[in-house]
């Protein structure tokens, strides 16, 4: 398979569009948890009860044409190969938990993959809308539309006092988790992020990153999301997150500006070294790849690297995950082989970029 057609399959169509503020905000996501009234939740339900939900989904939603999202395709976990499931996980379309739910787990996918509905994960339904860039309001609107559309045909468990009832008490009420994935290299580099963090947390928001040795998050990527789901309106939950993200964007822009003014040569040196490693290395571990990709992305977004497009970080972040590498190779790979494949894929991808 050529790298181009592989990538076409591997990258969700929604991701190819550049969203607002996409130099800092990678993606925005809204998820709504919904359940049926009478069937127990998946952790405790019997197989035939979960099977009943699958039949309902097949009858009422699968293959149906939704005005905004087109035809919804149903993928059942027990009909997918291991690696196909892994790819869905790496595209953030399903959770690792669902991929292991082989008995009755399924996902409904929209044509552009911006909308996915996990069936029989922790809750009976998890409606998720994922958009590129900073589009929280749109994500909420689309998830809400889908919620209304589904509710025309099935009764969701709803209680006047507690709201939408969910398996986990952390989701009850709105069932809403909104989150934004941000690339904040300059705030990390200038060591400002750790000082901002406590203020964000005081607002009831959660920040997640993957921390390796030391304090830097892998790829300088952070996910910020709401913790509270009960007692607030959906719009207010999303607005609280939106305003914090807006402030973070400003802080990150200011930090980039000050880096440029105070240490441009140092910054350029770091960015071009990383570019060199990505363009020529023969083996690269996932952690290092993330770090170098973050540098190059920063260089692109600051206008220091001009001949490469900015969404390369988003793409390669996904493409260099083990599941994709194995799908590209067409076989299971040992970790050393993966490092070799990863380096090759990045080199080819960069070459493709320059040839454009």
């Amino acid at each position, binding site marked *: 398979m050529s790298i181009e057609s592989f990538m076409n399959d591997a990258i969700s169509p929604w991701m190819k569009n550049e969203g607002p503020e996409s130099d800092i905000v990678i993606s925005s996501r809204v998820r709504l948890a919904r359940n049926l009234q009478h069937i127990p939740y998946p952790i405790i339900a019997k197989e035939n009860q979960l099977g009943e939900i699958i039949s309902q989904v097949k009858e009422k939603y699968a293959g149906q044409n939704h005005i905004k999202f087109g035809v919804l395709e149903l993928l059942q976990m027990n009909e997918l190969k291991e690696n196909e499931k892994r790819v869905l996980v790496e595209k953030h379309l399903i959770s690792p938990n669902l991929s292991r739910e082989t008995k009755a787990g399924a996902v409904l996918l929209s044509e552009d993959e911006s909308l996915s509905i996990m069936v029989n994960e922790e809750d009976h339904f998890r409606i998720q809308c994922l958009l590129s860039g900073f589009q929280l309001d749109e994500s909420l609107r689309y998830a809400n539309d889908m919620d209304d559309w589904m509710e025309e045909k099935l009764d969701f468990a709803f209680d006047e006092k507690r709201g939408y009832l969910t398996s986990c008490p952390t989701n009850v009420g709105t069932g809403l988790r909104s989150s934004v*994935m941000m690339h904040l290299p300059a705030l990390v580099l200038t060591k400002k992020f750790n000082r901002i963090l406590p203020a964000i947390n005081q607002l009831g928001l959660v*920040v997640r990153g993957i921390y390796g040795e030391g304090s830097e998050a892998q790829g300088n990527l952070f996910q910020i999301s709401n913790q509270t789901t009960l007692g607030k309106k959906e719009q207010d939950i999303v607005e609280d997150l939106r305003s914090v993200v807006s402030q973070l964007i400003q802080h990150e822009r200011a930090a980039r500006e000050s880096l440029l003014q105070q240490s441009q040569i140092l910054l350029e040196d770091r960015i071009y070294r990383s570019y060199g490693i990505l363009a020529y290395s023969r083996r690269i571990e996932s952690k290092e790849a993330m770090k170098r990709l973050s540098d190059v992305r920063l260089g692109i977004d600051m206008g220091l690297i001009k001949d490469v497009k900015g969404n390369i970080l988003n793409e390669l972040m996904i493409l260099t995950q083990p599941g994709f590498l194995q799908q590209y190779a067409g076989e299971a790979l040992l970790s050393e082989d993966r490092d070799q494949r990863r380096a090759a894929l990045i080199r080819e991808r960069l070459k493709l970029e320059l040839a454009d």
Partner: protein
Amino acid sequence: MLCQECQSKQASLHFTKIINGEKTEFHICETCAKDKGDYIPGSNSFSIHQLLSGLLDTEQPFSTTKESPSLKTQREELTCKNCGLTYQQFAEIGRFGCAECYRTFDEKLDPIFRRIHGGNAEHAGKIPKRKGKDLHVHREIENLRSTLKTQIENEEFEQAAKIRDKIRSLKNNLQEKEGD
């Protein structure tokens, strides 16, 4: 440092979560992280549940070894009729078993919800469009009633009569539906 999950491999991922100002650190090895699925940014199952099970433990009034017999019976009685989950099991796994559990454990839920949801225990958001229709109508009737009251106080009787008719017809519709 050893992995806190398997206690056998070296911890290579050091994961910090700060929720409402409370800092929790996780030190786990790559294998366990992958098992948990938490090495992918965006997945969010692991820590909340850890936090929650810890939290529910402190909320759990029966976790002490000394138990009076009456408390014990009370605990045994709290079992969901629909799915069979006991309150004890709920506290251990940090999950409800079904929608009916909410009603069964209702008297114990307020403090739990308040701790998780920044002091809130009651829903203020969306109402389902179709199923919540009656709820919407009830709310509309409430609103019309308060309008009616002010109009009568202001002696705007002509308008008040219209509002009264509207309330009447909304109520009739509700009753017809409930009679179905």
